[in-house]
């Protein structure tokens, strides 16, 4: 109970922490790190919900009567981790491409450069 509770709390706090970094850091790559932390928080929250006090992993071969963790949230999380990694890799590639060509990582300037390009 305390284990799941503390993990669930941490998950929610990590989401907020990541969003905070996403909003307050100016450089793109730091923002992406913040996003990474936030998505980790959501995943942790789901894992915390799969846990039961004193539970065993959702594997067979344990003695009778030991409660098992819920496999469904864990399965969802596996999917989510991969999706987050995929979007992170793509966004880093975009960030590199933007930095190489606009010579800045600050989102405000990127936004202005984009607007300038489209106002022709």
């Amino acid at each position, binding site marked *: *109970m305390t284990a*799941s*509770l503390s993990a*669930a*709390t941490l998950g*929610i*706090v990590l989401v*907020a922490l990541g*969003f*905070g970094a996403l*909003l*307050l850091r100016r450089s793109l790559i730091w923002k992406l790190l913040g996003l990474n932390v936030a998505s980790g928080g959501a995943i942790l*929250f789901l894992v915390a*919900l799969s846990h*039961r*006090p004193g*539970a065993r*992993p*959702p*594997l*067979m*071969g344990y003695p009778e009567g030991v*409660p*098992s*963790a*819920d*496999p*469904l949230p*864990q*399965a969802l999380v*596996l*999917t989510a*981790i*991969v*999706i987050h*990694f*995929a*979007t992170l*890799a*793509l966004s*880093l*590639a*975009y960030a*590199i*491409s933007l930095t*190489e060509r606009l010579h800045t990582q600050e989102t405000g300037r990127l936004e202005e450069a984009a607007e300038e390009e489209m106002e022709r």
Partner: protein
Amino acid sequence: MRIAAVVGVLALLVGILLVGAFGLFPLGDSPDWEKLARAYGAENGVAAVVLGTRLYDTLLEVMVFALAMVGVRYTLTPLSRWKEPVVPERGVVREMADLLLPVVIVFSLYLAASGHLGPGGGFPAGAIAGSGLLLLAMAKGIERLSRELHEGTLELLEYGAIGGLLVLGVASGLFGVRGSGLLVLFNLLIGIEVTVGTWVVLHYFGSHRGEI
């Protein structure tokens, strides 16, 4: 001002979510998954869900992964390549890699093949094998290795694995075929796909910016 707004809204969000989350506990008993796992021929409940009941989610997820790698490839290709010579071959590193690589490959094969019995599965296996290739790249120089691993073959492997997964998944669903052999096959196909994808992303990131 902005900091105050950010901190305020985040604090409120955390507060309300925590109040809601505390209401969720204590959780009820876990649902019985063992019957389901047996029906799919798995001993790992997570594998039974990922490769069994919710195989369709996994298929979509594999496509997300593969398409993100496609995106990385097409985004980074037009950028200037790293011009400095790649790491020269260093004896020690090279030997270390030669020693470690078989271990890594065997370990990832084990993870993929036993994913339905214990912890493991195609995704971590592929990620570890892809990192193993990166290790090899450190020793051999990334350009040389990427020439040796023919890009066309890799693409064929990657898309072939996804195509195979799709066809197998749909066919097994439509004809009601189940069993642990099928799960091993799925895991291996996912493993191949992820290995190639990982190699592609690391290789492209490595050769277009910075050296490994």
